[in-house]
């Protein structure tokens, strides 16, 4: 990781996302270019309504831009069908949401196994991996509980396990600590930091200035859909 210049996984080239509300246009993302490299811990900061979530959805190819190009592993996502894009996304990108977004009809473990179904893994493999991931997020004893029987922090850890289901290269997290108290939030952040150390690329949206100080290497500051400034952690290895 230290030696070579890291590979670019996701690249946004002059990307715009507009919403048309009657006669007015909301420019949620307005001309953003950036490169996410393997092993990065990226944060997107900004006020409410500045376009952070919209941008993250574009980075994760959950959404398609109104204008501009998005490259996922060098491939232009606009050339993919909706279904193919979805399947590639399921393999390469893991999502963590502010509101956890677990399926309450299913147990914690089943939630973790869901992404693997769509990649065609058989049930034995799914169960084996889900057990390991539940172990990783220290919830082996809650495996067969429904999400609504778990605390917020526990739910978010299940969501982290789910995001890792298909061993994606990138984890995208939209305010992962937004619904948690600061102590629980810190444990969730530690998990993310750990994952980053193990080589996962993390892109996180937040408006918590404290998180920005401690965790990410690069911070994109967003205002009105535009990147206002970019800050990099000075204590990064390469400057040492």
């Amino acid at each position, binding site marked *: 990781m230290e030696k070579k210049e890291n590979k670019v996984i996701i690249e946004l080239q002059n990307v715009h996302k507009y919403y048309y509300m009657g006669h007015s246009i909301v420019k949620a993302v307005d001309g953003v270019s950036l490169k996410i490299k393997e092993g990065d811990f990226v944060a997107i900061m900004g006020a409410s309504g500045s376009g952070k979530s919209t941008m993250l959805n574009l980075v994760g190819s*959950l959404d398609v831009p109104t204008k501009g190009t998005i490259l996922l592993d060098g491939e232009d996502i606009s050339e993919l069908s909706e279904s193919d894009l*979805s399947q590639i*996304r399921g393999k390469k990108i893991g999502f963590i949401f502010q509101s956890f*977004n677990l*399926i309450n009809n*299913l147990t914690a473990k*089943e939630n973790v196994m869901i992404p693997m*179904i769509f990649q065609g893994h058989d049930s034995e493999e799914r169960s084996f991996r889900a057990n390991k991931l539940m172990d990783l997020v220290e919830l082996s004893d809650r495996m067969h509980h429904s999400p609504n029987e778990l605390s917020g922090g526990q739910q978010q850890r299940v969501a982290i396990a789910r995001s890792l289901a298909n061993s994606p290269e990138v984890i995208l997290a939209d305010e992962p600590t937004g619904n948690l108290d600061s102590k629980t939030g810190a444990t969730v952040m530690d998990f993310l930091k750990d994952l980053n150390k193990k080589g996962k690329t993390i892109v996180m949206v937040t408006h918590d200035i404290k998180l920005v100080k401690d965790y990410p290497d690069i911070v994109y500051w967003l205002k009105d859909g535009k990147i206002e400034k970019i800050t990099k952690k000075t204590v990064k290895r390469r400057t040492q």
Partner: protein
Amino acid sequence: MIKDFFSLALKNLKSRGIRSWLTLLGIFIGITAVVSLISLGNGLQLAVASQMGLASNELITVQAGGITGYGPPGSTVVEPITKGDARAIERLSSVEIAVRQNIKSAKVEFNDVVNFRYVGSVSNKEEERDLMQTRANAGPIMGKLVGENDFGKVTLGYNFYDKSEEWGGEAIIPGDTILINDERFEVIGIREKVGSLISDNAVSMLEEDMEDLFEYGNIADLIIVKPKSEDLMDKTKADIEKLLRQRRGVKEGEENFEVSTPESALATINSVLEGVQIFILIVASISIFIGLIGIINTMTTSVMERKKEIGITKSVGARNEHIFSQFFIESSLLGLIGGLAGAIFGTFIGFAGTYGINNLLGTELVPNIDFVLIFLTLLGSFLIGGIAGIIPAMKAAKQNPVEALRG
């Protein structure tokens, strides 16, 4: 992967509320109707046929009626058939015997209990009596049947003996005396059970006794005709019709009497039953159609309610086909469950109905359980569920992930 969708669908179905299950009522009722109709099979036909006393198949019966004249209802009294008609019929070359029979309702008293029962006449002539007994198809279970010159004596249907509760707890047996329209009659026999509510509850006595008791003179409620040969059934029928048209002065097509052969009676029963079956099938189709709409409705609601879930599964890599399959399978399973419940209940009705018919008629019918047909109805309900699920499933598959995630 399809297997996974099935198990996901089952999990989702388990967590469904009562409202979803209520919408299956349509499919349930429809399939119940179809399956019970099939499993009752010809038991139904047998039941009706035996109620109408169609056990013997070589006799023709003649009754007044048919098209009962014109004008406002009640203004035309149907001209009765008479003893003279019976004699004239007997003189026809194709006819061996023609016997008149009268059936009246009377007050029957025993053990200080009064009930109203049918009384049927029996001829005093042996060959005529034999004919009537062939038709009634019920020998004595106790005592003997009314025979030659048994004036003042009666035989009774099985229920007089069996249903003692109708007679103040006392079963009527040979040797007892009963009052019929206040006249005393000696019971000399009980007939075996035939399963028809009319015959099992009827009193038999000699025609002469009946004529005295009811004073109907020459009238005949019924003429029972035995053709010279069974092959002559249709010709005999035509001969009788021609004769009676002449005697009663009516034109062809305007008959105020009815000559029925067992076949024609059976055909009538069959056509009535067919009508009933068609009616039931129409009702079944309507309820299945309502069921279809019901499933479309719950599935559409379900897609709305689970929008977020759709967003989640899309964000973790579900293709549109995956989402479609999931909802489609769930809908198909809904239909199947409704059909399965209907098939089970319908089979149950088939068994219960057959049991009831056997009990009533003393028959030994077995319900007609056709596994191929049951399989087909289940397949049908699975497909109906699937068809109902197509549009909602397409709606689900087309959800934009970002919007769906917003809920």
